[in-house]
């Protein structure tokens, strides 16, 4: 945090900034670091939120891709449909599955980072 001072350059010291930087006095921060019940609950909340998000995204993939073999087995006529000159299974598996996986990943990264920002905001919340 004080890297600029260590580089030997002169820095202006402002009391307010130094005080704001003294994180251990921040109660939520101290709760986390010292493993109090409050800190424990905060971490449990974050873990639960991230796990729920990951499971929801996994569910999207399981229903989107994982159901396909079953679908093709139950309704073989879907397997022989043609779109743009390609049969549907080739189009779905050979081409569309890759952008689908990427989009799911992209949405997950955005929401996971938002969960972390929310967590950080709670910890840094001014009393």
């Amino acid at each position: 945090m004080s890297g600029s001072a260590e580089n030997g350059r002169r820095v202006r010291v402002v009391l307010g900034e130094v005080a704001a930087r003294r994180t251990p006095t921040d109660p939520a921060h101290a709760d986390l670091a010292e493993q109090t019940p409050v800190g424990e609950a905060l971490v449990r909340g974050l873990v639960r939120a991230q796990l729920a998000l990951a499971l929801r995204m996994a569910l999207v993939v399981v229903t989107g891709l994982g159901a396909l073999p079953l679908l093709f087995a139950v309704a073989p006529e879907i397997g022989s449909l043609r779109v743009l000159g390609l049969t549907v299974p080739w189009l779905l598996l050979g081409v569309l599955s890759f952008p689908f996986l990427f989009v799911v990943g992209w949405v997950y990264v955005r929401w996971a980072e938002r969960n972390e920002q929310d967590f950080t905001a709670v910890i840094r919340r001014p009393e």
Partner: protein
Amino acid sequence: MNPYVVPGLVVVILATVAIGAYGLRFARTTSDFLVASRSVSPAWNAAAISGEYLSAASFLGVAGLILRYGVDVLWYPVGFAAGYLALLLFVAAPLRRSGAFTLPDFCEVRLRSPLLRRLATVFVVFIGCLYLVPQLQGAGLTFTTVAGGSYVWGALLVGLVVTANVALGGMRAITFVQAFQYWLKLTALAVPVIFLVLQWQSDGRPAIDPPGGPVFPAATTVTFDDAARITLPDGTVDEVEAGAERTYPAGSPVPDVDTVDDQRGTDWLLPGGDDSLFATYSLILATFLGTMGLPHVLVRFYTNPDGASARRTTLVVLGLVGLFYLFPTLYGVLGRVWAPHLLMTGRTDAVVLILPEAALGGGTLGRLLGALVTAGALAAFLSTSSGILTSVAGVVFTDVLRAERSERGGSVRDFRLATVLAAVVPIVLSIYVANMDVSRVVGLAFAVAASSFCPLLVLGIWWRGLTDVGAAAGVLAGGGAAMAAVLITVLGPPLTGWPAQMIGQPAAWTVPLAFAVMIVGSLATSRRVPKDVGATMLRLHAPESLRL
């Protein structure tokens, strides 16, 4: 023989050594060797991860499988890519925050158990060997197919180049090499495909799947390595001896050979078929969940500066790997048009290598593109084997030589010794076990990883109740069962019926078994939950910006 192949291969090997040497200028400390001192940018890192991941099985095997079996095996590339999504969702950021460099490290960080650490070491070395042997074999087979050289020299050459590169440059050098090799592999598949599709258009779009089965595009002479029964379309049977040759005229249908298992007609074009559902789901489970347990994949995450960048790197990898997998499918499909004789010899893995010359003729363009794909194949062997070797050597360095904990703290020399130790066994094995099936062994490595390390990582990261006893029991039950299935498949007698499916694609029962044993074992020994589990969870999940 194609006169451009040898110069192409020499260029790839020289570029690999040169980039490795360039990286070596920066590699001075043990930290550089093991984790590139954590100073690799996400773009380089993602290209390096993809370069390392796209092995011989991806570059050659996927196209060969599609040529042979059709739509059902599209689950291989989909699963290989989806594995990175599972890794992103459940493992990437927390694993980076754990600070673990290898899977045994993770066991130590999360469960504080030296016994579990040793068990994980055994599995890392087993999976590493299982993955490394087929890479070297693929190299040997390519040298026989394309250059007409000897199998042993091909395997030895790739083995030695890789060992030297890892031992001299370590992770820092390897990162640049891997990133270069990703782009080389992508170019080597993408550029010829443009010409292949143009040729297909100008030939008047020959049918991919003609009603009477594939036909020979030109008069073709097929040489049979083994005795076989050939069934011609009109029902006559032709018995050939080993070494026999048969010539078929252009436009005649490709006969069926009893020694080669392949799909024709609607079986190739449409999904399903007999009893494929269990095998399909088993494959999906193994590839989706196995990627996160491959030792050379995890090592890379430590080179990210923090959890959030580990996540972004994984997303870029998902994009790069998905982009790559669009191409092998086209090679497999166009192989039905221009290289159907591979269905008679069974050497379908060679389709990527021979397709440019088969489609575009023996002119300069066809030969240049043929040399390009061969160079890409070499890059595939080199990069994946370097990655696996680095990670196995890392584990040997820390857990077998105990270098990091010795008083000297582990030197670069020890790492080099570890590399040579880790390389010797697979190189020797690849020379003596030449007849193992390449793409299936890679699939089995995924199954072992999915049934051992996947439950360990997922439960370790998300469930406080995991204990060392439960984890060890789960790894032994699930991973041990998968390991046994692998050994039976590779060494045992051929099986038929249900046992063949259960042993040949074990993931559908070994993965749930591993999870179940791990959870029940942990609940039964709940007093052994580490006391610092709260602190560990905080470390795994809290963003670094809090600076706790």
